[in-house]
């Protein structure tokens, strides 16, 4: 549905390329996460695909139509939710949604159930000036999906949302994908990306540094080992075959400082007598793998902390 080949772009006043030859594709029914630090090229890529930025080289197509030739038919198949929701302040939530939806051809989703699901039922008839940031973000999603677009561009869709509403947003995104939409999602929220995306790409300085399924990336950038967490005791440090485990890519972030840890390689784990013995000792708190997290991968690839 979305195909990008050797895409390059330099802003008119820019001295260097903002996008430096990227390739990716998003299939119908797929949620594709586009992750990276600010200024890496996420928004530029999205603007090109939305048909707002021209003058690029390479190819960027949506439904086989080149983005540089985007016309009203091209845009009719797209749903977009910008990071900063923009609405008519003097119209109500429902009026805004209905106004924008009225310009798209074809059948529309009934907005009322979506308002209810996203906790906006009571605010449907409020003017936008009375909406909080979180409410606008949820309304932003309703506007983006109301016309059943074939391609959905979402920029930070869970920004400013509480965990419950963020979950509903993720559910709706997954439902749209299940309905056949290709979803292009840019975010800093690695937990949301992990929970929602089928594949993610990390873009750094205009180039894609890694692109795969979240689970595959976590395995690739993680360590093939398990860590046994136990209450501290004199025998833990002397665990035969094990070693004191250190934090790896944030995987141990949840462990208490007082927790004793011992690490065992994943290969041959079932026959590792030391590991079995470790499990039999008192004070066992848990066993976890040393897969990396998307946060850790982000940090490793970009060299920048998430904020």
């Amino acid at each position, binding site marked *: 549905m979305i195909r990008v080949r050797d895409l390059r772009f330099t802003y008119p006043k820019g001295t260097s390329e903002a996008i430096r030859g990227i390739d990716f594709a998003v299939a119908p029914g797929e949620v594709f996460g586009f992750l990276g630090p600010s200024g890496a090229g996420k928004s530029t890529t999205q603007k090109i695909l*939305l*048909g*707002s930025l021209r003058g690029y080289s390479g190819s960027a197509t949506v439904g086989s139509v080149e983005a540089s030739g985007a*016309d*009203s*038919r091209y*845009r*009719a198949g*797209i749903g*977009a939710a*910008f990071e*900063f929701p*923009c*609405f*008519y*302040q*003097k*119209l109500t939530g429902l*009026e805004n949604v209905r*106004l*924008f939806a*009225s*310009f*798209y*051809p074809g059948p529309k989703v009934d907005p009322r159930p979506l308002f209810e699901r996203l906790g906006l039922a009571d605010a449907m008839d409020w*003017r936008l000036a009375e909406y909080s940031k979180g409410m606008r973000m949820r309304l932003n999603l309703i506007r983006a999906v109301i016309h059943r677009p074939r391609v959905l561009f979402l920029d930070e869709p869970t920004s400013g949302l509480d965990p419950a509403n963020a979950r509903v947003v993720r559910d709706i995104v997954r439902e749209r994908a299940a309905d056949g939409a290709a979803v292009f999602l840019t975010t800093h929220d690695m937990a949301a990306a992990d929970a929602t995306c089928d594949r993610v790409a990390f873009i750094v300085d205009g180039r894609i540094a890694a692109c795969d399924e979240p689970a595959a990336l976590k395995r690739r950038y993680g360590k093939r080992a398990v860590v046994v967490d136990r209450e501290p005791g004199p025998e833990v440090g002397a665990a035969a075959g094990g070693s004191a485990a250190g934090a790896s890519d944030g995987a141990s972030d949840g462990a208490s400082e007082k927790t004793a840890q011992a690490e065992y390689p994943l290969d041959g784990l079932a026959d590792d007598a030391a590991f079995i013995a470790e499990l039999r000792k008192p004070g066992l708190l848990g066993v976890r793998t040393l897969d990396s997290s998307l946060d850790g991968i982000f940090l490793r690839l970009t060299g920048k902390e998430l904020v």
Partner: protein
Amino acid sequence: MRANDTRPAAAGSRSMATGARLVAAGSRLVAADLRLVGRDPLLCIMPFVPFLAAIALRLALPPLAAFIAKATGFMLLDYADLIRVVLILFPGTFFGMMSGFLLLDDRDDGVSAYWSVSPVGRSGYLAARLALFCTAALVAGLAVGPAFGLGGRSFAADASVAVVGALQAPFFALFLAAIASDKVEGLATLKALSALDLAPLAVLLPLPARALAWPFPQYWAARLALGASLGPGTGVAVGPPEALGLGLAVSAAWLSFLYARYRRRVD
């Protein structure tokens, strides 16, 4: 053969359907703008200001003119035609201000950027808004003359001035949206632009001072209504048709320049 025969008819019906869709989309945008104006107390009042001014002058000008004539011998009502021109141009200014403030709001709120990724497109959204306020300015311009009731040479002259005046609505709208960074700057810009309301008075000035007003359509509106020549010593006579043509040409040049500035600002 049969397919060839039906092709032009099919193309015709397709273009008719496209036209109908455009009209329907434009109507929805216009309806939305009317709703936005209706919910803003300041914008609600603006369409009536030219009429209030015209009626106030209709009532106040004759006794005021009599008083001035008695006191100084100056015949103010000799200039009723010119005052009528200024009043007929007023709706263009006011409807342009309304449209400009809506554009500024949309630009600040990011709504214009959203339209650019919708089937309407930025151009469609802008065209619908400018067309609405331009049409409203034309209708109001035609109605303001009779509301004033003084001066006036012919309906054709009033209508021509109203046409030039209506084109000032997109001029003011685009000027505000292209130049001002926010509403506060927009108000300051408007104060500076309000001097243009007096451009028709330049017909009273001798050359070369009068030439300062040539780049402004408001001046040509006065020329076409008053129908006089450019003045002694120029060797060039400008009748109403030429003045109308110059007024439209100058308006078109300004609109092209301001539209390009606006697009650079929002793209």
